[in-house]
C-alpha cells in the first residue's frame, strides 16, 4: 500500500517526470500519426457517401472528434487542478497549463469545422444551436484561463489561481449547457442536430472513434512535450537541469 503511494509521488517530482515524459512523447506521436493516417484513409475512401448530405458530411470526421477532445481536455485539466489543490504538487499545475492551449485549439477547430458544416447544410456560417453555443462558451473559458495565466508572474500563484478557475468552470459547465439548451428550445432556432441528422452507420462511428483516438494521442504527445519545456523553464536554477545533456551542449 505505502510503496504504491511512494511510487506515485516519485513521478510527481519534475526531475523524474522530465525524462519519463521525454520517452513517452515519441511513442504517442507515432500512435497519433498512425491512427490519424488510418482515420483519414477511412474517412475519405472507406466511409460511403451519405445519401442526404453527399460528400459534405465527411466534415463530421474532424468536427466531432475535435469537439469531444475540447470537452475531454477541460475535464482532464479539472482533474489535474483538483489534484494540485489537494496534494499541492508542482507538476499538476504544470500539466493543467500544458493542456490548456491544446484544448483551446480543439475548441476553436470544433467551431471552425462546425461553421464549414453549417454553411452547406443550413445555409449560414453560424447557427445559435445549443451545442455550437456551448462550444463557444467553452472556448471563452479556455481563453479566460490562458489570460489569467498570462497575467500572473508568480508561478505558484498562477498554478493555484488557474486551478481554482478551472474547477469553478467545470462546476458551471453543466449549468451553462443546461441553460443554453433551455434558451435554445424557447427560441426555436434551427435546432438541427449535427451528428444525429442521418442515421449513423457502424463504419462512420468507427472512423470517428479512430480519429478521436488519434487526436487523443496527439494531445498527450503535445501536452507532454509542452510540460517538458515548462519544467525546464521553472527549474532552470536547479542542478539537475544544469546537468542535463541538452543544456550542457
Amino acid at each position: 500500500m505505502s510503496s504504491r503511494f511512494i511510487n506515485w509521488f516519485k513521478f510527481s517530482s519534475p526531475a523524474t517526470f522530465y525524462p519519463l515524459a521525454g520517452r513517452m512523447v515519441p511513442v504517442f506521436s507515432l500512435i497519433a500519426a498512425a491512427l490519424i493516417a488510418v482515420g483519414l484513409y477511412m474517412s475519405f475512401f472507406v466511409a460511403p457517401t451519405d445519401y442526404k448530405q453527399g460528400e459534405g458530411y465527411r466534415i463530421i470526421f474532424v468536427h466531432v472528434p475535435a469537439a469531444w477532445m475540447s470537452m475531454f481536455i477541460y475535464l482532464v485539466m479539472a482533474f489535474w487542478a483538483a489534484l494540485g489543490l489537494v496534494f499541492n504538487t508542482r507538476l499538476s499545475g504544470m500539466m493543467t497549463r500544458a493542456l490548456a492551449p491544446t484544448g483551446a485549439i480543439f475548441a476553436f477547430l470544433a467551431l471552425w469545422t462546425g461553421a464549414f458544416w453549417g454553411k452547406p447544410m443550413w445555409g449560414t456560417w453560424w447557427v445559435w444551436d445549443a451545442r455550437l453555443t456551448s462550444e463557444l462558451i467553452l472556448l471563452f473559458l479556455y481563453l479566460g484561463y490562458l489570460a489569467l495565466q498570462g497575467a500572473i508572474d508568480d508561478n505558484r500563484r498562477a498554478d493555484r489561481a488557474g486551478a481554482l478557475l478551472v474547477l469553478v468552470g467545470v462546476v458551471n459547465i453543466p449549468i451553462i449547457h443546461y441553460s443554453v439548451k433551455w434558451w435554445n428550445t424557447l427560441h426555436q432556432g434551427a435546432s438541427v442536430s449535427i451528428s444525429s441528422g442521418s442515421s449513423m452507420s457502424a463504419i462512420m462511428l468507427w472512423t470517428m472513434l479512430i480519429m478521436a483516438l488519434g487526436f487523443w494521442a496527439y494531445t498527450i504527445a503535445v501536452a507532454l512535450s509542452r510540460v517538458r519545456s515548462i519544467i525546464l523553464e521553472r527549474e532552470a536554477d536547479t542542478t539537475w537541469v544544469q546537468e542535463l545533456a541538452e543544456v550542457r551542449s
Partner: protein
Amino acid sequence: MFSAFRTLLGRDLLLAMRRRSDLFTTLFFFVIVVSLFPLGIGPEMNTLRMIAPGVFWVAALLASMLALERLFAIDYEDGALEQMLLTPQPLSLLVLAKVLAHWLVTGLPLVLMAPLLGLQYDLSSEALGVMVVSLLLGTPALSLIGAIGAALTLGLRGGGVLVSLLVLPLYIPVLIFGSGAVEATASGLGGQGHLSMLGAILVLSLLFAPLAASAALRISAE
C-alpha cells in the same frame, strides 16, 4: 461571528457613503448604456419592446462587472485584507459581508432604477414588475460569482479587462434566465419557471461562491 459580519457590512457601507461618486458611476453607466440602445437601433416601439429584456440584462451584467474591480482592491492596497485573512472568523463569511455591501451599493440602485428606464422601452407594468424581481434575484448572484473573479485577479495588471474575460462566461445562465423571465412575461407565457431557476442559481451561488472567493483570496494574497 455575526457581529463580525455586521461590523464589516457597516464599515463597507460607511466607506461607500463617504465616496458617493463611486456609487453613482455604476448607476449612471447603466442608465447611459440602456438609453443608448434606442439611439443605435431606432425609436420603433415594437422593436424596442422586443429587445428591452436583453438590453437591460446585458447592461446590468456590464455595470456589475465594472464595479467588481473595487470589491477587494481598496482593502488589498491598504492592508485591511491581510488583517481579514488573519481573523479567527471564517473568511467566507467576511467575503459574504463584503459582497452584500457591494451589492447594496452598486446592485440595488440599479434594480430600483430599472422600472423607470423600462418606461423608455414601453414595457407593460406586468413586465416591469417581473423585470424588477428578476434583477433582484439575479444581480446578487452576479456579485457573488463576480467576487471569485475579483479575488483571482487581485493586484494584477490589467485586472479590469481580465475580470471580464473570467467572469462573463459564468454570467451566461443568469443572463439567459433573467432576460427570459421578462420576455416570457411580455409574450404572455408567464416567467414563473425562469424566476425559480434564477432563485436556484442565487441559492447555489450563495452556498459556493463565498467559499471559492475566499480560497481565491488566500491564493492571491499569499
